[in-house]
């Protein structure tokens, strides 16, 4: 068994926490896991990624191009920036909510809808929801990362189910944020089951 997940986002969006949660869930499920995270200078509002490799064998933490089974994009452009990691039959869970870089003179114009279209054209199994909005409704936009993990588990895109994932979250999220995260988690689960039914 081998399952590679790439999480992409912008510094401050909770990429590292999301990857720790997945890694812990993987260990609890009895697998080896290796992660590679972006820490330091690049985190300051820059593009950040985290590689999470789950499997039976110990391997290097960086996913080779074309090997990721799942991309979790906390931000559309960051998902697209890393799509070369996605394998032929991989899936994408992407947050529709864009974080627009502060305009520096000659930056490419950013049209998030076009980016989402590009992702969908290249990956059949793309789940796109405004998870930031969903998290805001649950109580804080900061819980978008948790909502996205719930969506991935709910859509059967992870090697463990939502209950296993929640039991890890419960241990790792500080008590005072727990309820709020549970709400974002449940709302997200419901949202994906709606999408699946539709």
């Amino acid at each position, binding site marked *: 068994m081998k399952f590679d997940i790439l999480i992409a986002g912008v510094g401050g969006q909770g990429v590292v926490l999301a990857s*720790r949660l997945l890694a*812990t869930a993987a260990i609890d499920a009895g697998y080896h896991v290796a*992660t590679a995270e972006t820490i330091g200078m690049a985190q*300051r509002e820059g593009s950040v990624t985290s590689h999470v490799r789950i499997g039976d064998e110990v*391997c*290097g933490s960086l996913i080779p*191009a074309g090997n990721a089974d799942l991309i979790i994009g906390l931000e559309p452009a960051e998902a697209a920036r890393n799509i070369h990691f996605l394998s032929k039959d991989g899936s994408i869970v992407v947050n529709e909510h864009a974080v627009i870089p*502060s*305009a520096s003179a000659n930056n490419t114009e950013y049209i998030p809808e076009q980016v989402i279209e590009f992702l969908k054209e290249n990956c059949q199994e793309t789940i796109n929801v405004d998870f930031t909005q969903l998290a805001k409704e649950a109580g804080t936009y900061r819980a978008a990362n948790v909502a996205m993990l719930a969506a991935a588990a709910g859509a059967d895109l992870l090697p463990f189910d939502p209950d296993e994932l929640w039991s890890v979250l419960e241990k790792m999220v500080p008590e005072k944020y727990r309820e709020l995260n549970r709400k974002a988690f449940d709302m997200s689960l419901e949202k994906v089951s709606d999408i699946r039914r539709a």
Partner: protein
Amino acid sequence: MTAKRILMGNEAIAFGAMKAGLQVASGYPGTPSTEVMETIASHASKYGIYAEWATNEKVALETAVGAAYSGANTLVTMKQVGLNVASDPLMSLSYIGVKGSLVILVSDDPGPHSSQTEQDTRAFGHFSNIPVLDPSTPQEAYDMAKLAFKLSHEMEIPVILRTTTRVSHGCADVVTEDIEQADRDIEGYVKEPRWTIFPKLTAQRHPWLEDLQVRLSDRFSDLFSENTFNSITKGNSRIGIASSGVSSLYAKEAIKDHSETLSHFKVATIYPFPEKAALEFLSDITDLIVIEELDPYLEEQFLQLIGKHHLNVNVYGKKKGHFPVSGEYDVDAVIDGVNSSLQAMNTDFPLLNHSTPVVARENIPPLPVRPPTFCAGCMHRTVFYAFKKAAAKLKKENGKGTVFSGDIGCYTLGNAQPLNMVDTCLCMGAGISMAAGLSHTQQYQDGNYAKQVAFIGDSTFFHSGIAAMISAVYNNADITLAVLDNRTTAMTGHQPHPGIGLTAMGKPTKAIDIAEVLRSCGVELVETIGADDLGECINMAKKAIEYEGPSAVVFKGKCVGITKATGQYVIDEDKCTGCNFCVSQLGCPAIFSMSSGIPQIQDNCTGCSLCAQVCPSDAIVLREVLQ
């Protein structure tokens, strides 16, 4: 009892060190090494360990050395550039050795992700004659931390445990053991001539040091037969692969379909080079592919050995251009390098395949780039902008320009557009000394520049700013120093420092006042001001620059990484004229504007009000005000 848990490589090292009986630990934060000391500090009281953040790496090493001379088990932590700062004591220490044990954790940063250099600590081990262990996974990092203490104790020498970013900052499942209380019972310092380095002693010790290298090389060769961190797997062809550190894993994955054919020499005890084992490995190899990040260290060792023994082995690595000489490796880079070597080899061995991605990297349409920049609401943005404005005013008034010397920390990002306020940046503390150097040039003496301005953070000030400032004052350098005091070591994840009044272990301590230090260094104009009010900051910057002689301003403000947002600003669409001044001047990541229309403020606004202060139309207001 053992337990399996998810640990970052750095945490694993901390646990390994504590398991090995660590008693005293000292370090200076530096990405990617920081979490080792953080983990130890947070467990220190539980296990009876003493842990501290020193003012810099030289001080950290010397502190650990002192404790080790008393027989304690000690650890010192730093990143690769920190080792340069500590190199003075290090080079002498290798002649003297230690009692107790001393492990030096140094983290390298191929890429680099967060560093000024891509330097290779394996080469530093060679240079200083100190053994280097090079783990490839967090588990190995844990196990090798223990081995490092053991070796150090046994041989009475310092040992370098060298990691790279992917080992330090990768997380994995690690099997750890129960940790006992650190033993407080150490022999204590015993006066002996061996602790005082002197030319005579150096001359005496040098042959011992050289002999030690040979003994260690043999010892490391023996470790191959035990098949632990070092290993040899034999394949049935005459092509071999040699690798070190995390590259060993990339190599293993790249050749996984050929493990029966290709031999693999994985070396984790990297310096001194395990010659005997390498010779044995080479005995049935005719073509050797060497896979390692950074310097061609392993490759050179092999080339030397092959030359020394007149072996008929071709070596493929960086030197013939088969592998990149810089940057971080991954499985794809390794596949390319192996294929390039195979092609040069004149063999019928099949080339390795890459996986096919859904979209190749080249075919990703253009996306907006996101260069790192100050967080939304960071005090540094206000101070840099204030100096920019003050300098512009002075230029208008007297026609003189200003040069801004930056330093290492979050505020290095003052170089980012649109602020563009870092004209020089070299290493920690260099901003001050370089500004001083610039001020002594003829061009400046002739009055072509208004003043040299240096920026430094609070932690860096203590690290290497003080000595630089004393030198500047003593030598009559006419510079202005801006201390960006956000009450933390922000870039590495918010460690305390001597200005805070808290130790690494969370105990209250005397806080050193930066302004007082500056006064006692002889700086005549020293001011302290909050960094919230842009107008006041501009006036203060101007006053300091205009002052004749060394001047300094300590700007106190917040790091939003550790403080709460004070509100959120919004753009009043009725008042906004769409001039985009706020966006084009500040580069705050919370504000953006599309090609047309008025700017918008995103969720990450922390309410610093800087944009409101620069808006010419008063169109930026607190959210509650608008509602």
